[in-house]
């Protein structure tokens, strides 16, 4: 692959915020005033750190109860997986699949995909960069949909607040899960896909 057709090879930097080009020696963008960097600063280290924190929190997010449903005085804690199984048992398979994809598969595949991207950049793997950039785009796009579970809990706790008759209380896994989602969104944001292209020879 030709290396001299990139902006950086021509001594130019693209502003992250407004997209205009500037010479490498310029510090602040002349149009919007934001700081110029050829690549996102410390992209690899930041993504790696955020990814590790996300991975660590993924464990409590799945082990602890995400909410407790109390009906007529009888409390029943649910984990994320337990909630999905309960949905399957009550014959709501499509919704169960939706929750399974949004709150288990997407975070897991995101953690895996970001690790692959980091490995690719670190070990300078020679890959089909176009395809890997596409993978990065999918990872960046699907991240927000994992918030589904958190929003659902927020609605449920405010709705089902009927004292002794029925009540839903959020559990400790909700915080861990929200943190996983936010951390992986930040991880995807701090990864610079141009690094994939930079390591190709």
């Amino acid at each position, binding site marked *: 692959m030709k290396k001299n*057709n*990139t*902006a950086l*090879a*021509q001594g*130019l930097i*693209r502003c992250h*915020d*407004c*997209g*205009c*080009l*500037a*010479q490498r020696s310029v510090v602040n963008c002349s*149009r*919007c*005033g*934001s700081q110029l960097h050829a690549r996102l600063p410390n992209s690899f280290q930041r993504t790696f750190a955020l990814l590790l924190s996300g991975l660590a929190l993924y464990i409590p997010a799945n082990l602890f109860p995400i909410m407790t449903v109390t*009906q007529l005085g009888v409390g029943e804690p649910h984990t994320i997986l337990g909630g999905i199984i309960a*949905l399957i048992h*009550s014959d*709501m398979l499509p*919704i169960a699949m*939706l*929750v399974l994809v*949004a709150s288990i598969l997407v975070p897991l595949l995101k953690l895996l995909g970001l690790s692959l991207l980091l490995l690719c950049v670190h070990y300078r793997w020679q890959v089909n*960069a*176009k395809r890997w*950039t596409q993978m990065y*785009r999918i990872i960046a796009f699907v991240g*927000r*949909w994992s*918030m*589904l*579970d*958190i*929003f*659902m*809990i*927020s*609605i*449920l*706790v*405010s*709705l*089902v*607040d*009927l004292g002794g*008759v*029925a009540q839903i209380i*959020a559990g400790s896994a*909700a*915080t861990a899960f*929200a*943190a996983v989602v*936010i951390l992986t969104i930040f991880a995807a944001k701090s990864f610079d*896909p*141009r690094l994939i*292209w*930079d390591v190709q020879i």
Partner: protein
Amino acid sequence: MNIKNYLACPECDLLLQRVLPVVGEKIHCPRCNYLLHRPSAESITRTFALSLAGFCLLLPANLLPIVGIKVLENYHDGTLLSGVLTLFKEGMWGVSIVVFLSSMLFPILNIVLACLISGHLYFNRPNRYLSLWLRTLQHIEEWAMLEVYLLGIIVACVKLAAMAELKFGLGLTAFVLLLLVTLTLASHFDHVLFWRHIEQLNSHEKK
């Protein structure tokens, strides 16, 4: 070479000649297929109109009841705000702040900033904060997650439908409308055009 005639792909850094697409055309990066520019007709006017419409929907969507449930003659309804407050009261302040930001504050800021920016451009008023506003808007855009929240409402309703009677409120209508306005706004918002206009306005002011 004049760097104004060139642009770089944000995802693969390929240096390209700047071309001005007409409305309806899409320009993709030839190397990584990134969507570089998709101009929209009357981008500034439409953004201004849509953000004004969004402005009217902000309060009803945030404060009116979205759904109510009835269990054994007990009626209770929930709004966007009450979900945040209940979580906070239960001591889940972390989750509560995340929900507050992504379903209330950022969508509101999104509309307000789009209104301010397009209003200034529509009436040709220079303002030294314009580029700061647009930068902020670009950063908060992806943290406003109304469409995900709507899916959350649907899943919660399906779960509750088995155990209680559901009643949909006016807040839900306002919320769906706000979501539609926000999505249309995002698709008509031409960042390249906005940046160019801001540059022109501010350079006229300096003279």
